[in-house]
Each structure stands twice: as structure tokens, then as C-alpha cells.
């Protein structure tokens, strides 16, 4: 009986590996025909994205640039906010309140992103336009804010777990030496958690990178090289979402969209690999000490 279950687990494990490999293969398989008609340099470094113009331009550089802008801004908002929240939950509020907050966080993190997109579109954007007199409220800042709101619960919850699970003997040791709560946090706990925090940052970045709905609704989708956070921008994932539905199959435009998917895949993969390397490096360091 046991061997049957083992076999079942083995089979399903291999099937999921095979599916992932197949998806990857499919992405690249549908991308490479693009290079029959388009120079790879034009694809990666072209500055114009006009897939339906005559002649078409398939340059993804503005999309890459916008993705960097929005993700950078979003992670700059997300990470410190998550950290402050985690410290607030572990060090300021009483234990019972901490539990309630945690439940709220978890509910919030499972909220569909389309709802935040709608809030960004119908509340934040008009506010930016009418009160702050921006040309358009559908811009990088709005997208990054909404992205942060949907992302914050995940890193907060993880950081909180790590701070709570910090070895009590070290904490108590510090306190026994006369350190107060704040000193224990900054001098003992934080240095000890550098590794996990770095990988939490990477995980959050991965989530921000792939999030499509919010950016599609809120960022304005203009394929330009933005010069300020008050300008609209078009990211990789939103381009696939808005154009794939009506693109004729087996045309260069179709291949180019798959190319964007493949680039996105490679980027997210790299982010996760870097996150993992950082984590392992810090873990080794901890072991040595």
C-alpha cells in the first residue's frame, strides 16, 4: 500500500516538473520565429513599440524601462512599510492585538488585485488629477502605490514570523546585558535576520514584477521612457494582457508577445535565483559564527 502512495507522489511530482518544462519550452518555441522577420537587437533595444503599425516596431526597451521604474518605486514603498508594520506588530501592540492584525493582513493579502486597480482608477487617479493638478492620475506613482498595497501583507507576515521565531536565548542574552527593547531589535535581531529579510525583499519584488491587473488598469500604458513618477508607463505584463486577446495567431506580433513573456520569465527567474543565493550565503555565514 505504502509503495503505491509513493508511486503516486512520484508520478505527480514528475508530471508537474514536466508541465513546467513544457511551458518554458512553449514560451521560447513561440518566441524564436519572431527573429525570422525582426532583428534581435531591434527587439531588445528598439525604442518603439508599435506592433500593428505599417511597418511594425517591436522594441521592448520602453516596456523594460517602465517595469524597472514601477517595480523599483513599489519595492521602495513596500519594504520599509512592511518592516515598520512588522516591528509595530511584534514590539508595540499587545499579543492579542497582534493576532487580530495578523488575521487582517492575511485577509488583505488574498484580496483580488482587480479591486485595488479599481480603487486606483476611481479614487486615487481623480484625486491626482483634480487636487494635485497632474496631467493624468494614471501614472507610475499611482501604480506603485496600488502595487505596494497589495504586496505589503506578504512580506509583513513573513518578517513578523521571523522576528517572533528569533532564538530567545540571544534576545534574552541581550536583555540580560542591559539592552532595552529597541537596542535588542536594532543590534541583535536585525543583524541576525539580514539573510531572511533579503530573500523576503526578493520574493516581494518577484510578486511586483508579475502583477498584471493593477498596472494594466492604473499605469496608463503609454510606451514611453518616463522621466518622472508622474508620467504614465507601460510594463511588460500589461502589454501581453491588453494585446494577446485579439492578436492573430502565428504573426510576428503574436511571437513578440510570447517574447515579452519569455523575457518576463527570465527576469523573474533571475530575481528568485538571486534571492535564493543571498539567503544561502547568509545562512552559511550564520552557521560559521
Amino acid at each position, binding site marked *: 500500500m505504502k509503495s503505491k502512495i509513493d508511486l503516486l507522489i512520484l508520478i505527480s511530482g514528475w508530471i508537474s516538473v514536466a508541465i513546467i518544462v513544457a511551458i518554458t519550452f512553449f514560451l521560447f518555441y513561440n518566441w524564436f520565429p519572431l527573429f525570422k522577420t525582426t532583428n534581435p537587437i531591434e527587439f531588445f533595444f528598439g525604442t518603439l513599440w508599435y506592433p*500593428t503599425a505599417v511597418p511594425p516596431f517591436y522594441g521592448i526597451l520602453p516596456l523594460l524601462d517602465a517595469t524597472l521604474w514601477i517595480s523599483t518605486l513599489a519595492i521602495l514603498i513596500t519594504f520599509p512599510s512592511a518592516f515598520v508594520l512588522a516591528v509595530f506588530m511584534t514590539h508595540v501592540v499587545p499579543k492579542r492585538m497582534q493576532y487580530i492584525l495578523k488575521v487582517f493582513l492575511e485577509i488583505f493579502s488574498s484580496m483580488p488585485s482587480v479591486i485595488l486597480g479599481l480603487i486606483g482608477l476611481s479614487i486615487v487617479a481623480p484625486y491626482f*488629477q483634480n487636487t494635485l493638478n497632474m496631467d*493624468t492620475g494614471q501614472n507610475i506613482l499611482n501604480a506603485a502605490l496600488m502595487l505596494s498595497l497589495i504586496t505589503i501583507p506578504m512580506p509583513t507576515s513573513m518578517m513578523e514570523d521571523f522576528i517572533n521565531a528569533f532564538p530567545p536565548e540571544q534576545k534574552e542574552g541581550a536583555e540580560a546585558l542591559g539592552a532595552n527593547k529597541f537596542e535588542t531589535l536594532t543590534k541583535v535581531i536585525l543583524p541576525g535576520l539580514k539573510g531572511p529579510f533579503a530573500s523576503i525583499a526578493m520574493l516581494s519584488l518577484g510578486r511586483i514584477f508579475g502583477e498584471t491587473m493593477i498596472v494594466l488598469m492604473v499605469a496608463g*500604458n*503609454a510606451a514611453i521612457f518616463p522621466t518622472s513618477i508622474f508620467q504614465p508607463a*507601460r510594463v511588460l505584463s500589461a502589454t501581453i494582457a491588453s494585446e494577446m*486577446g485579439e*492578436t492573430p495567431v502565428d504573426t510576428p506580433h503574436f511571437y513578440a508577445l510570447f517574447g515579452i513573456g519569455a523575457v518576463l520569465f527570465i527576469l523573474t527567474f533571475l530575481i528568485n535565483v538571486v534571492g535564493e543565493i543571498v539567503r544561502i550565503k547568509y545562512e552559511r555565514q550564520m552557521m560559521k559564527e
Partner: protein
Amino acid sequence: MKKVFFVLLVLSVLSFSVFATTNIVIVGSTTVLPIAQQWAQAYMKLNPNVNISVVGNGSGNGIKALLDGVADIADSSRWMSDSEIKYAISKGFFPFPVVVSYDAIAPVVNANNPVRNLSLDQLKQIYEGKITNWSQVGGPDMSIVVVTRDNSSGTFEVWAEKVMRGGLVKPGALTVASNAEVVRAIAGNKKAIGYVGLGYLESSPNISEVAISGMKADIKAARSGSYPLARALFMITRGIPSGEVAQFVNFGLSPVGQKIVSEVGFVPIYEVK
């Protein structure tokens, strides 16, 4: 035993229904999609033995499905291309397009913007980014925020063909995914300009139509072709339609079908009450 009997019963009912129904597969333009869907629903109510499936994935994919024999009817918001017609003839049939309705689009601005009239050339220059301030076209001194549709939509196709005429929409234009989103963007931004289908002009009190050189979008002008931003919408069949497909297309062209056309916001091919 009871179970076996039940399974047999279910199977026999299923097989009966499979033999009795005719399937019509409609694939193509998302612009024509609401018309095809409403027609299909009404037609299936009248003829319960007909099963119609409607898919919206763009005119190009619809025509391709028709030519490959996967679809019975292709919805298209444009005329077939030379290569598509040649491919059809090489497969041994002649594609048969039927005009099912007209579609007109109109430029719109925020209701607080006093500009109510622009020429096609001014529109082109605004969208190309050559005119960037409303004062250049007789409005107040404020920058112009250009709103456009995603470049694979049918509405954008009309705009590109009739207004841009080979020019490129400036990369800084806000790009949104539906008529309703254009309305939302324009209604909330006093500097914005956009374009929507005729059916969406009344959907918000905060948007105003802009006439093109004095001409407003209306049903008669769209039908006669005198309004510059109008086009015909097609359903294309493999050869002259026959059987259930012909019945369906006829239903669509009947007063009942054309009433549905005007209900979903398009221009019927003749006057219906």
C-alpha cells in the same frame, strides 16, 4: 442494475440531443461580438435545436478559423485582405461577406472643455503629438492628454485608418482597454481627449462629443458613408450561406435582428422602429 439503467438513459438522451442539434460556430472580431452574442441568444430561443457558439478573438483569427474550416461564420470589423481572399480561393471556396451593421466612432472631450469642433487634420496632429496644448485649437491654455485604445482593438483600427492615415499615435498616449474605460478616463480628466463607439456617447454626462469639421456622428451619416469615422461590420461565410447558417444570417438581417443591433449600440443597416 439501477445504475446501469440510469447511465443508459443519460447516454440515450445525450445521443439523441447530439443527433438533433445543428451546431454553428462563430469566431472573430470583438467589436462584432455583442451583436453575434445577442443574435445567437435570440435565435436559439426561437430554435431550440440549434446550438450556436460565439468566440471573440479578433477579426484576423476569425477569418483564419473560417478559412481553416473551424468556424462557420467569421465576424470581421474589416474587409478581407488580399492574402486572405487568395488563400480562400486556393482552398476551393469563395468567401461571402454580409454587412450586418455599421459602426461609427466619435472623438470626445471632457464636458468642461469648451472645444466642440476639430478637423481630421487637427485630430491627427493632436494624436501624433504635434499639437500639445488646447490653446492651439481654440481652447483654454492647458496641456492635452491623449487617450487611445490598445492597438489590437477594432476601434483603434478605424482610428488608425481614418484619422492617423499612416501616422503613429504618440508613445505618451494613455492606452486603455475598452470603450467604457475611455469614457471613465475622459469624464475624470478635463485635459483629456479620446474616441468611443457611437453607443457610448450618452454613457456619461461628463463627456462631450467633438464634431469633425462641423459634422457630428449620427446614424444616417454613418449609413450613407458621409461621416468620416464610420465603417461596415461583416459576417463572412464559406461560399453563399445555406441551411441553418443562412437562416441565422437572415434572422440577423430581419427587423428583429436589426433592432438588436441598435440595442447594443451599433447602427442598423436600415431604419428600424
